[in-house]
């Protein structure tokens, strides 16, 4: 049945991979696209990247981190359960071509959306160096998959529990110091990470693409809640993006807008934790 969860796997601390029966989306989706998903009617519609898909078998995969109420509800579903609503594939696909030497940098749950881009870049014949990072070893996802596809893979953890001790930006600097040069960069992760890392890649003259994750409601261009400023112009991330040229992004605005509902979300989380304790 459509939207049924076929497989559920815990990838890391509070990060899950779901395989979902969704033949239409599986057939159409391309790297860089996402779905709008509502686990059960009492929750919000949230955007999640399509991390993988098989057109023949008719499934898509999502990888998500539990950060608030909706993702918590989602993580409570099990194999066989049907997700209430899934719409997609949405957003523009990643512009993939043979760039030559490409660097992919992913942080935290951002490694998930990076994976399909990496696969497409390899299919197009690029030489890809990948750097992935996480808070700690327990939070790191997709190391095996990224390693299989990348020509070179580097790993960093903030606390040094695995790989390089430090941030992905440090690793990028080291790779560059070692003399590696790149024609193109893809950077996906928390906003602060994308801001910092893309400033480094841009400073090295590398064309850099980031995938923005503003709050979305419909995901079809109807509300404008996802608006971001790129090169001084207002764009709707759901239909004009989610990927944009990193050089023109108003990061401060994006950070402010992402924090819009913080007070509501904290209240939600506290209520939930209470419910969990009881």
């Amino acid at each position, binding site marked *: 049945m459509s939207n049924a969860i076929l497989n559920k796997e815990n990838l890391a601390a509070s990060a899950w991979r779901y395989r979902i029966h969704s033949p239409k989306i599986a057939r159409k989706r391309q790297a860089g696209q996402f779905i709008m998903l509502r686990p059960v009617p009492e929750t919000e519609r949230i955007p999640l990247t399509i991390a993988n898909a098989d057109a023949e078998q008719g499934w898509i995969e999502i990888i998500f981190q539990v950060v608030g109420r909706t993702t918590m509800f989602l993580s409570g579903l099990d194999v066989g359960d049907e997700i209430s609503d899934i719409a*997609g594939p949405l957003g523009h696909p990643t512009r993939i071509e043979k760039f030559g030497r490409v660097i992919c940098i992913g942080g935290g749950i951002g490694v998930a959306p990076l994976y399909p881009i990496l696969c497409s870049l390899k299919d197009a014949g690029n030489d890809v160096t990948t750097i992935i990072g996480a808070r700690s070893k327990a939070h790191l996802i997709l190391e095996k998959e990224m390693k299989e596809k990348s020509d070179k893979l580097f790993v960093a953890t903030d606390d040094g529990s695995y790989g390089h001790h430090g941030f992905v930006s440090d690793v990028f600097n080291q790779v560059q110091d070692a003399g590696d040069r790149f024609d193109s960069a893809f950077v996906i992760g928390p906003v602060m990470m994308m801001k910092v890392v893309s400033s480094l890649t841009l400073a090295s003259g590398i064309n850099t693409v980031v995938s923005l994750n503003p709050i979305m409601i419909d995901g079809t261009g*109807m509300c404008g809640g996802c608006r971001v*400023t790129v090169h001084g112009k207002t764009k709707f991330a759901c239909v004009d993006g989610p990927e944009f040229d990193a050089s023109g992004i108003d990061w401060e605005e994006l950070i402010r807008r992402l924090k819009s509902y913080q007070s509501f979300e904290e209240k939600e989380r506290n209520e939930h934790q209470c419910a969990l304790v009881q």
Partner: protein
Amino acid sequence: MSVSETKSMNRRFLRTPMREQIPTIRKSNYHEVPYGYNEEEAVAEAKRCLQCKKPLCVAGCPVNVQIPEFIRLIAEGEFDAAAKKLKETNALPAICGRVCPQETQCEGLCIVGKKGDPIAVGNLERFAADWERSAGKVAVPPMSPKNGIKIAVVGSGPAGLTVAGELSKKGFDVTIFEALHEPGGVLLYGIPEFRLPKEIVKQEIDYLQKLGVKIECNFVVGKTQTIDELMAEDGYAAVFVGSGAGLPSFMNIQGENSVGVYSANEYLTRANLMRAWQGTAKTPIFKGKRVVTVGGGNVAMDSARTALRLGAEESIIVYRRSESEMPARAAEIHHAREEGIIFHLLCNPVAILSDEKGFVTGIRAIRMELGEPDESGRRRPIPVKDSEFEINCDVVVIAIGNKPNPLIPTTTPDIEISRHGTIVANEADGRTTKQYVYAGGDIVSGAATVILAMGAGKVAANTIIQDLLS
């Protein structure tokens, strides 16, 4: 003239009033504002109709509802027959009775209006449809035998619903594809509960499903499948596009992306579709103590009145022309005033102000005066020099218009698009430049009205029947 004669004269020219929730109470609940006529009131109002031989009212109705005929049936107490008469030309009378701009259509032309109050056609329409529904008299009409021809309808707003109903009755196998998770279009996510109860929309949709119409939600045509794929791979013989004008316009002024600035679509969607107003709802919305809504149409009135119901202490409308140019229905402006909405007319925001965290603190506006009429025929607003002033507020809702959603235009290469982004379709038959693809409603006309969308749907349905069955 004797006293009793004057009295009966007055009755003739005075409209039977509609009972309503009183403003001080209704502004903090979501229940519908007018209660609707009871049977006696409806009969009394219907008896005022002169039953004109050449009814002017009908000429004002975009779908030619047989107005004197249905009103006569109400006057005779044949309420069920009145509803059936309405439905011969208008599939959604319970909705139209509530949201049509009657004052510029049927009621605007009614002959009685020359001497007194025009006949309350809208109230009577609503009465008949509500009566039929609550009496459980809604019946499936005679259906043609199934012809097995598959038709795809894009969008479940009034245009799409109308096409689907008409074609299903004629035996076609109709599927509506809707991008959102619930059907209804603007009727659902835009127009608020207190003006159009969602239960009514739901019942109309249930009715269509009884006629055999299938509805597939969460299906974004152009993305999930394109129109070409629906036709070539899934065997749809024709496609009707009723995807509406869902893309909100912004003003492109400084501070517009501050936290607390919403498009009306986002504000109303959070309130309606995601049910931010219900106790169980989890979609957050800034309730705002002082809310400024920019615009003068129905969308602006709905946003400003929703703000009150979400708990705003003051809800302010800022509009750049004067009241007489406001495109909103007269009833909405009247209701908004009664509820205490503050109108700042003849002024326009030039910037949105915010604090260091990016949260809205107010707007800076400039006063306007009216100059020569522009292409819309309304007098053009011109800024008055050195007249800027500030209004404090913590939420701003931008309700200055919607443009057509570009999803279909950009994914259907061989369909002609106007320079406004609308799909080019022939008004007389609903045909687009692509064979067997038809379009109507806001995607063709730009943001307009429910009844025009339904009218366009009806025209297209007739053409589809002609093109495919002959």
